[in-house]
């Protein structure tokens, strides 16, 4: 745990128009969802932080958590920013994020289960052994 200076946080919330909680698209964004910039979109009227996020995502796919790391913004703020950009068609989400267990609250929330996850674990194991 760290204590951020209040003005940093105020700045972060200004970026999100005062929103502290992701809603809609942003709320559905998992931390390991991959996003990329959609080429050829107009960039007018965007805030510098939105532009930075788009520029970061122009070279390929990054997960939400990676964008947060590179932007230097907290995860919540990053998800709100990326949600806005996805809603405006400036960023796109990589097709099937099928391996993420997704939603659910409570004990073992979203812990992956089922045959496809067993297969993923098996491939994870082989991948690690081959490193």
């Amino acid at each position, binding site marked *: *745990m*760290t*204590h*951020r*200076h*209040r003005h940093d*946080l105020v700045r972060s919330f200004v970026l999100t128009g005062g929103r*502290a*909680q992701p809603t809609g698209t942003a709320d559905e964004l*998992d*931390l*390991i969802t*991959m996003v990329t910039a959609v080429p050829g979109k107009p960039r007018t009227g965007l805030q510098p932080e939105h*532009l*930075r996020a788009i*520029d*970061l995502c*122009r*070279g*390929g*796919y*990054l*997960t939400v*958590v*990676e964008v947060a*790391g*590179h932007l230097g*913004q*907290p*995860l*919540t*703020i*990053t998800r709100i920013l990326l949600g806005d950009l996805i809603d405006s068609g400036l960023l796109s989400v990589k097709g*099937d*994020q*099928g*391996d*993420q267990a997704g*939603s*659910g*609250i409570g*004990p*073992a*929330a*979203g*812990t*992956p*289960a*089922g045959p496809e996850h*067993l297969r*993923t*674990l*098996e*491939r*994870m*194991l*082989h*991948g*690690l052994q081959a*490193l």
Partner: protein
Amino acid sequence: MGSRLSDGVYVRDTVQITAKLMVVGPFGVGKTTLIGAVSEIEPLRTEELMTQNGAGVDDLTGVPDKHSTTVALDFGRLTLAEDLALYLFGTPGQQRFTQIWEDLSRGAYGALVLADSRFLDQSFEALSLVEKSALPHIVALNTFPDTPDYPGTELREAFDLDPGTPLITCDARDRRSAKAALIALVQHLYAGHQESS
């Protein structure tokens, strides 16, 4: 600022599946060292804000300014197959930030609980949080040059470990050792999934 990142920073185009494992333990236990030892990218750091949502759930007694409280997350990435990238999420796992822990660990396959045998008790909190969230896990004792050499049974007793939870040792600085710890974790997760399916 704002320029593109170098090529190796991006997720390989062929990756379709992203998976996540948690690395949990107190400050200084070696989470970031372990992640850095195996990650293909320079480990990155971000943070999660303590939101109002969590404030209702967590005990904020003693936290000087609840509005500016954050929990650090260090993470790395390993591309394990053409279409599969594994993310390692390192976070302290503090009981008073249970809500953030649940947010960060949602969808994770399991957790590696890291402990320092010189300060075993510092890892109890993280272990108990992982146990409470019912996330499958193993405990890895990060060995340091002056690590006392406890017998395994004593350590298991100290952690009050469930008989089914593996306890291993590792050297978080060493790539091979860090890799072996992850393999032990994934083997444990795989065995658990096999049983349940």
